[in-house]
């Protein structure tokens, strides 16, 4: 990408990015989404595992959160700069070996667990 695009257009959003934790695929997060019903705003929470982050550090960056709700897998894609995202909470950091953990889609129950990331305390 041309550095001028980064400098002029995409640098506007660094403050939005700074608000959110640095999450990766394999992490469990809770996304607070504002939903407009008529004239009222309401906050809905979507808690699940991040299975991918696409187009990182561009304006088009999105991430996908997967959860299993009533036995049915639900995935939701959020643009990270979306003004509808009120808050992103980091619940748990997971250890996975790849950037896009699509293999989670084929797993249910105990098989769908993710190892915790070991945090080195210095």
């Amino acid at each position, binding site marked *: 990408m041309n550095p001028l695009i980064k400098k*002029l257009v995409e640098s506007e959003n660094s403050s939005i990015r700074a608000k959110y934790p640095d999450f990766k695929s394999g992490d469990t997060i809770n996304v607070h989404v504002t939903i407009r019903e008529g004239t009222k705003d309401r906050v809905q929470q979507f808690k699940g595992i991040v299975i991918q982050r696409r187009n990182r550090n561009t304006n088009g960056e999105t991430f996908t959160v997967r959860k299993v709700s009533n036995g049915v897998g639900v995935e939701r894609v959020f643009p990270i700069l979306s003004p509808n995202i009120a808050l992103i909470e980091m619940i748990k950091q997971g250890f996975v070996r790849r950037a896009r953990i699509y293999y989670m889609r084929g797993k249910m129950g105990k098989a769908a667990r993710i190892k915790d990331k070991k945090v080195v305390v210095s």
Partner: protein
Amino acid sequence: MSGIIGKKIGMTNIFQSDEASTKQIACTLLQVGPCVVTQVKTKETDGYDAIQLSYGEKKPKNTSKAMKVHFEKAKTTPKFKVIEFKGFAKGKYQLGDVLTVTDIFSEKDVVNVIGTSKGKGFQGVVKRHGFSGVGATTHGQHDRARHPGSIGASSYPSRVFKGLRMGGRMGGDRIKTKNLKVLRIYPQDNAILVSGSVAGANNSYIIIEKS
């Protein structure tokens, strides 16, 4: 139409909100000028009013002697693109003046952008003209799924009509994209951000005109 020469830098997207909703819109960053006025044409001397703008640096060794003198007259270095524009206010710009973004555009303007589309080479009718192909791959149609079908009747007219759409060279055309909104202006970097897409590759020359 008054306009200016520039370069396509690339695409990105921004969130834009109005009272009702917030939309993520695709947008293109364009380098706009600065352009030098290298000739002022008038009705008396040339039969019509226009100004000639030049943009982009060019090595002097690759410039012909005639053009070198032409640029010297405007007291500027050799330029890559030289294009004439009608529609500027008469007598507003003199030889050697430099036009920048803010001279012509302001935010919320609507512009047309002319670019040269990317060359696609020799393409069939499905890609080039949007034909739907023969469709069926059964009933004996084993090898002609993307063919044009019939190109005319038989004994009358006994020929194929001129201009019938067929395969051929696609792309590399001059394409004008109309009514793009100017979303932002960056005077320091001589750039504007317009809504939507613009024909051509990144770093290709474009003409931005007021619509």
